[in-house]
């Protein structure tokens, strides 16, 4: 069995590739706190129009899986280079909202 992080990576890559091949990202449909905050992730993790070959993709990943990952990163239960430092910039509720948004957008 592959480690969890690799399984997420492969699953998400498949989902994002599907989305990415359909069309370049043309519109961010919602304009609220979470939609704006989520755009920060694009810099490293890519977006609907760009799949990073280096960074784990996060868009289209199951919300509960993403939320668990973010909380474990925040508490250093899951080791990381910078995501621990970044996730501590958000409340658990904000991370939940981000996970929900990224899973659907």
């Amino acid at each position, binding site marked *: 069995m592959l480690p969890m992080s690799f399984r997420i990576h492969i699953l998400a890559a498949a989902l994002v590739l599907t989305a990415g091949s359909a069309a370049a990202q043309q519109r961010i449909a919602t304009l609220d706190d979470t*939609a704006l905050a989520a755009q*920060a992730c694009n810099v490293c993790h890519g977006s609907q129009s760009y799949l990073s070959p280096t960074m784990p993709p996060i868009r289209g990943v199951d919300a509960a899986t993403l939320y668990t990952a973010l909380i474990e990163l925040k508490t250093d239960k899951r080791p990381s*280079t910078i995501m621990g430092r970044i996730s501590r910039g958000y409340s658990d509720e904000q991370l939940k909202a981000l996970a929900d948004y990224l899973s659907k957008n």
Partner: protein
Amino acid sequence: MTSNISRRNVLAGLGATAGLLATPHIARAQASAGRVVVIGGGFGGATAARYVKLFSPETDVVLVERDATYVTCPFSNYVLGGFRDLSSITHRRDPLRQRYGVRLVRGEATAVDTNARSVKLKDGASLPYDRLVVAPGIELNYAGVPGWSEQAANTVMPHAWKAGPQTALLRRQLEAMADGGTVIIAPPANPFRCPPGPYERVSMIAWYLKNHKPKSKILVLDAKDAFSKQGLFMAGWESQYPGMVTWIAGKDGGKVESVDPRGMTVTAGFGKEKGAVINVIPPQTAGRIALDAGLAEQNGWCAVDPASFASRKAQNVYVLGDASIAGAMPKSGTAANSQAKVVAANIAASLRGAAAPAAVYHNTCYSLVTPEYGISVTDTYRPGPQGVAVVPNSGGVSPAQANAAQRKAEANYTMGWYAGIIADTFG
């Protein structure tokens, strides 16, 4: 989608006459969607143009940029290190037009009439706007280092703080110097573009010298007493380039008082030093157009509302990126990219008469100590009473103690970050 974009381009291409030719229905639709002019097509301006289109595709977005292509300052130190070439850090903006319908205007903005809401270009053209984004980057202060000049920079003492020909010049000088020479690097006082940049440059030049001219030395004559990621950089120099780098703080006489381009010497508080290669990184201000448009404070930088990056000096104008006074945020590509998303959201919301979402900002600056040894600083920010402030108990720098695999992982992520931000900025 293609037909919509081309229809917009055709209408937009008609410029000032579009309103006369278009039907009243279309004219009204365009008026309510608004027109945004962006000055400057770097990390901040290009991101702002792209995200206004993503949040509000019906808005007419015009990006004014002087140069045909963009050579990134990030990764230009790797050209100096000898493992990237300039073409790999040179980017075109065409996808902004092709995929998002941003109108690209090649030209130089020379004046802004903030009352009439119009930008004047060098060729005489005027661009009216409903909202203006000013993202001109930095202006170098050649007079800020006595003895130095633009001519000296273009011949013998490059700054290489705007990437392109200056980067190539500094690289050629490193290649031409004899083994055993001294490279002098003189970073400025705060604030300046890319706080870790001079020290990553030290690392990358050390990497080149270690592999090709190992008897050479690097002398850093600093105007400051401390610098970004200092502990990590100094530990990295000690372990990777033992004995090669000497850093002298401003308080210990490191501050450069003058330079002599003919004699290739630098005079600092502690005395005079001769360099085989001398890299002067001068003091800076906001880009020229921000100063000329009256958007800057006495200190040469532009004050903004920390919740929106709206100018403190003019209505319907936003200043972002290196030109702005961004509180705790550094002048970095990632910071500009993040500020641009907040600005785009504010513009999209204001054009439709809606409340803007809450601002949250992000910065990550990776630096390489060697091609396989990366370090980082990252922070999350929100607006506060004293300006943009770090969210407490978050962010920070890479751990002081880390194994080679962790440093290697951050070097890999440095590459991933670059590819990602280029895609996120230029589409």
